[in-house]
């Protein structure tokens, strides 16, 4: 008898290892008073090292941990997007009431834990890692949503997200069980083989029920209509840095596994699920865009807009082609830039306005603080998909991929959704630039009155910061993200290469 030590590919696992070590260090740092205030620096260092490991593994294409994880272009690119979003959330959270009240290190540890889940999820190639990654992503997020203990909405949004998110997870698990029963395997590749080998398994009702339930479970996570009802509420109730992270990073990681599970494991069934996903995408585009029209809260509006954007991105999976995946990843990257710019401005305005995110607080901002107004303007135009922004190129890319694969009607839906969306995006731009500065004061007064009830005695809000628009850690993410959204709109090639790197990883499974 000889014992063969398991081969462990430490290089391939390095992003996960770096994040885990960072997580432990951040938790331990909470114990020592002298180190505690360096929490954000530690977190940023962790993310920088993780990003470094990811870039180091840029060209890797191999299975890890006996095929439960796989590091390839798709995993690397989408993990990088999640890491960037987490770093932005750390910066935006400096001085935020949620971070202070929850305890800085605890807040950062939760954020890092969630990010670890995302990195695992982006690499998952087995049901086990899929489920564990998804829960590791979600559970810390539930707690993060509730960290602003002072505000009632924060706690309620945490509970609401937990209930809805867990229903999604349970549905997903049940679907996974059905697919396991039909294919007899838990690894993605083995599921695909099992489905093809099984007699009549491809049209078996067990399989189809499973596929439907997995799609529903994932739709809850990426907020696809009609499973989006939690989105506006949770986006509004959660502390804004958390919302920014949730909006961007969750989508990146969940879409990574969405792509991988549907194109690799369920690839043989593509003819069955593409219509289902196309219907969900079309519904999302309509519901998200129409829902956003009536919103007065900027965060709620961004929540509904996120539902519509998730619909656009889902269209990339519907095609089940490499061009579709490329377009999806491109759009996700653009979406990160656009949303980071928008949420950074929302964070700054909230701190100057007693934590109100009403659109009327933006009145006259263009005249008074153009440095804040420009990022928000460009973010809105990019989300609406106007040239010369990355949002425009992203939509173009998606539409081209759809038309090439004979999904013209879905491409038309995207165009119609874009037209509706101009209605609410341009309203924000108009509020920024066209309202006379004199109204700014009146607007601010109304907002103070409509503030949510707070704990008695909290008259002078210690977290308000009239100089928030001069804090580098708040302004820098806004400006850099805006610059990125513009740059990749004018010179899209680097981002196209980035997206194609993700698509190439799947070239074995799709055309």
């Amino acid at each position, binding site marked *: 008898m000889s014992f063969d030590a398991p081969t462990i590919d430490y290089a391939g696992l390095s992003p996960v290892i770096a994040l885990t070590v960072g997580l432990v260090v951040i938790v331990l740092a909470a114990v020592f008073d002298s180190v505690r205030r360096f929490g954000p620096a530690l977190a940023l260092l962790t993310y920088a090292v993780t990003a470094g490991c990811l870039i180091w593994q840029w060209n890797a294409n191999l299975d890890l941990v006996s095929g439960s994880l796989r590091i390839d272009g798709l995993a690397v690119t989408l993990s990088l997007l999640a890491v960037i979003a987490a770093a932005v959330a750390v910066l935006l959270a400096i001085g935020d009431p949620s971070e202070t009240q929850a305890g800085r290190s605890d807040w950062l540890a939760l954020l890092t834990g969630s990010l670890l889940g995302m990195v695992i999820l982006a690499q998952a190639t087995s049901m*086990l890692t899929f*489920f*564990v990654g998804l*829960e590791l992503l979600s559970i810390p997020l539930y707690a993060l949503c509730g960290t602003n203990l002072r505000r*009632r909405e924060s*706690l309620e949004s945490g*509970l609401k997200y937990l209930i809805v998110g*867990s*229903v999604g997870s349970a549905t997903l698990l049940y679907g996974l*069980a059905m697919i396991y029963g039909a294919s007899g395997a838990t690894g993605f590749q083995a599921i695909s083989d099992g489905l093809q080998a099984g007699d009549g398994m491809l049209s078996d009702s067990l399989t189809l029920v499973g596929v439907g339930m997995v799609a529903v479970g994932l739709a809850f996570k990426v907020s696809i209509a009609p499973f989006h009802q939690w989105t506006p509420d949770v986006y509004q109730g959660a502390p804004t840095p958390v919302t920014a992270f949730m909006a961007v990073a969750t989508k990146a990681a969940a879409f990574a596994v969405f792509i991988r599970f549907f194109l690799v494991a369920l690839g043989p069934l593509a003819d069955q699920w593409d219509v289902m996903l196309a219907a969900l995408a079309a519904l999302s585009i309509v519901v998200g865009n129409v829902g956003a029209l009536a919103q007065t809260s900027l965060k709620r509006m961004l929540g509904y807009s996120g539902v519509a954007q998730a619909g656009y991105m889902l269209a990339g999976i519907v095609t089940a082609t490499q061009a579709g995946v490329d377009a999806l990843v491109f759009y996700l990257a653009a979406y990160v830039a656009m949303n980071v710019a928008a949420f950074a401005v929302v964070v700054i305005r909230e701190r100057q306005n007693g934590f109100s995110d009403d659109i009327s607080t933006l009145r006259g901002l263009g005249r008074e603080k153009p440095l804040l107004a420009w990022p928000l303007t460009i973010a809105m135009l990019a989300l609406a998909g106007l040239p010369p922004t990355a949002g425009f190129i992203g939509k173009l890319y998606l539409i081209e991929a759809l038309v090439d694969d004979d999904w013209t009607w879905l491409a038309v839906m995207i165009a119609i959704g874009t037209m509706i969306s101009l209605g609410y995006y341009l309203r924000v731009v108009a509020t920024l630039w066209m309202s006379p500065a004199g109204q700014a004061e009146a607007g601010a007064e109304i907002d103070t009155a409509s503030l949510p009830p707070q704990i008695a005695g909290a008259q002078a809000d210690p977290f308000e910061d009239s100089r928030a628009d001069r804090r580098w850690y708040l302004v820098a993410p806004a400006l850099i993200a805006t610059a990125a959204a513009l740059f990749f709109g004018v010179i899209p090639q680097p981002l196209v290469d980035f997206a194609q790197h993700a698509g190439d990883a799947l070239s074995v499974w799709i055309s």
Partner: protein
Amino acid sequence: MDIEWYLVLSALLFATGFLGVMIRRNPVVILLCLELMLSAGALALLAFSRMLGNQDAQVFVLIVLVVAACEVVVGLGLVVAMYRRRLPLDVDEVKELKG
């Protein structure tokens, strides 16, 4: 026994849990119902694992149990935080956030 019985039981568990989440108003009961839904998935996995004679799903079920426990811990933590703030423990009363 046939596998159908296990599947029927797990489908019933799932449906009971889902119905409970929809109609009950106390968050603690809702958390219980969420546990039912996760257990339904676990039971289905075990039944299939037994039918197929491979052990992958049994490891999966152990992990599902751990995850379910984590979810309840966070959920109960939020419920306690709300209770301390004297917020009503009734999801219909969660009015600040309308859908």
